[in-house]
């Protein structure tokens, strides 16, 4: 049983050497192993900033507050230390790494996360199976990381990594955006497998309720202007589907 606790988190984005701009203004959120939390909210409310900050992206600066993984503050840790501690971020825009094959990348990542190289035979089988489940062409192992991948292919590869690396907590940053219905289903099944397989906690960031048909949240949090404006169970998502964010935005403007 693990816990990811975000306490009164204030974060600014670093614009240049001198200027920063506050984005998160006191976020509180606790996720336990096995729980699925959906984070919803309008554009610019700070959802992706939260995701990047938890993973330690250098563009964001923590002004105050804590991010605790099983009681230990991760804000002083480097990006790779956080990853090895069990935090995984499925990126919104996975970047291309020219000249580095997927197979090389996946095995290097697995080795780094586990602290030892995976046994060759089982690893090859694991990769093949996971790719099969996600309907990824076997040829992709010899392609360069994200190079020339379509939007949907990139997202499926993020989930492939999620399944292979088996983190304690996964943050999915708009993994559903740009996916057609079939791809959305395949990706959602991948997340559900990882969730069920190793009691993974999930922070699922999305604009749309569509993905919540496939991945059932235990909790829904509404993000507005850098804070959690409302929270509830899965039924809150249904209400948002009907009413939109307009009520919350009025409140924020007032």
């Amino acid at each position, binding site marked *: 049983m693990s816990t990811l606790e975000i306490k009164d988190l204030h974060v600014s984005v670093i614009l240049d050497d001198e200027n920063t701009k506050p984005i998160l203004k006191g976020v509180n959120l606790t996720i336990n192993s096995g729980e699925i939390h959906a984070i919803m909210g309008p554009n610019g409310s700070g959802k992706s900033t939260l995701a990047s900050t938890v993973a330690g992206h250098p563009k964001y600066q923590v002004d105050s507050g804590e991010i605790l993984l099983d009681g230990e503050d991760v804000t002083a840790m*480097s990006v790779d230390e*956080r990853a090895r501690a069990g935090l995984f971020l499925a990126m919104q825009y*996975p970047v291309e*790494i020219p000249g580095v094959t997927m197979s090389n*990348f996946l095995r290097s*990542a697995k*080795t780094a996360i586990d602290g*030892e*190289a995976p046994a060759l035979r089982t690893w090859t089988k694991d990769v093949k199976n996971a790719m099969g489940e996600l309907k990824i062409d076997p040829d992709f192992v010899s392609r360069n990381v994200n190079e020339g991948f379509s939007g949907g292919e990139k997202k499926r590869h993020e989930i492939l990594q999620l399944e292979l690396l088996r983190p304690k907590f996964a943050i999915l940053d708009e993994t559903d955006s740009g996916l057609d219905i079939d791809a959305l289903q395949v990706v959602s099944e991948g997340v559900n497998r990882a969730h069920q397989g190793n009691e993974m906690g999930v922070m699922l960031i999305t604009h749309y309720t569509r993905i919540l048909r496939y991945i059932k949240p235990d909790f829904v949090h509404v993000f507005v202007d850098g804070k959690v404006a409302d929270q509830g169970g899965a039924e809150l998502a249904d209400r948002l589907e009907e009413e939109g964010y307009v009520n919350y935005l009025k409140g924020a403007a007032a």
Partner: protein
Amino acid sequence: MTEQVERTADGNVITDILERNPELEGIGHYQYGWYDSDEAGKAAQRGLSEDVVRDISGKKDEPEWMLNLRLKALKFFDRKPMPNWGADLSGIDFDNIKYFVRSTEKQAETWEDLPEEIRDTYEKLGIPEAERNRLVAGVAAQYESEVVYHQIREDLEAQGVIFMDTDTALKEHPEFFEEYFGTVIPVGDNKFAALNTAVWSGGSFVYVPPGVHVEIPLQAYFRINTENMGQFERTLIIADEDSYVHYIEGCTAPIYKSDSLHSAVVEIIAKKNARVRYTTIQNWSNNVYNLVTKRAIAHEGATMEWIDGNIGSKVTQKYPAVYMVGEHAKGETLSIAFAGEGQHQDTGSKMVHIAPNTSSSIVSKSVARGGGRAAYRGLVQIREGAKHSKNNVVCDALLVDTISRSDTYPYIDIREDEVTLGHEATVSRVSEEQLFYLMQRGLPEDEAMAMIVRGFVEPIARELPMEYALELNRLIELQMEGSVG
């Protein structure tokens, strides 16, 4: 599909070839800061004069024409000004260099004949492993100024292939030297080629008879081991009609306090429809001035390929050239340069189209970090009459940090109308997003950086034989260590 080099967290390479051939481990390890006792070097004289040149020639018992050529070269060397268009060469003190060092009196026939300390040095370089594994067709290992160990496989000999050190070849096959020596790179071509011609010693001679394909690479290792000793090896490769040969030169040098000079000359003749590939990965220690002239003549339908990796040295100036003198001749250069702290890599290539329908390409990849400078300098020349010639140049530079420097000097000289030329140049920086992505997947920053750099040079690394690709990757990792923080 190319085989990938992959590593565990503690740095072990895990690849199928390594699992099959554990002895390959030795080739890629680069803790090459050791040096053994400097017996041979003490006696050698410092400084250059006519007496030194006469002495070298006399000790080798050379024909008079070679002595005369050396003396002529010495005059050119004295007369020619220091090149000042590239890197800073003011640190070279010609009076403080030993021009000839004899390390053993006579050549060893077998591995066991070698003195123990030389054997030990080569053990560290992994040569016996490579040789025992029969990965190499013949190993000519140059220790100091003379080739002391040399072997060629019997089947090659049976095919009529000659592969021996240049000094011996001059004695045993003088006809090749009278015909070809100094014809590709004339005695007064440039200051450093003149210096080499005056004091050359060692190097490799290769002759491949018509129609013979040497299927496995011929390899030679060079190593400077005497403090302040210049190494002036001279290589001559003649590939007769319809033949094929791949020659590999690997260089490593131990670390010394004062500066060293390495100034080699490589001449290659690819006759009609021959194909020659010449691969170099140089990793001279960071005090070596590496000023090398490499040039090939490609006759009708011949193909010349230079694969040139420059990782080490303080300064490297090297622009492997192909003169396409016959119709449908081809020239190709793949070049990698890595400039770390205190290093200046000024490298590139020269393609000279003399006959019609000739084609050439240059692909250059350079990486600079820690304040290093990497420059691409290339000349494409299409002479009058070389109609329908084609050339394509791609040069990509990667900057790992903000204090390093990359320059591109593409020279083009076209004297013919109906030609096709392409030129692409890019400069990129390792992006924050790439680092973040890899680190988010658990890789420490230096490993992430090394992975990005390896990926950048991969299009060239894939052209290398497996053990060299491994070596290149290890070198990159070593270069990237301490690059962050």
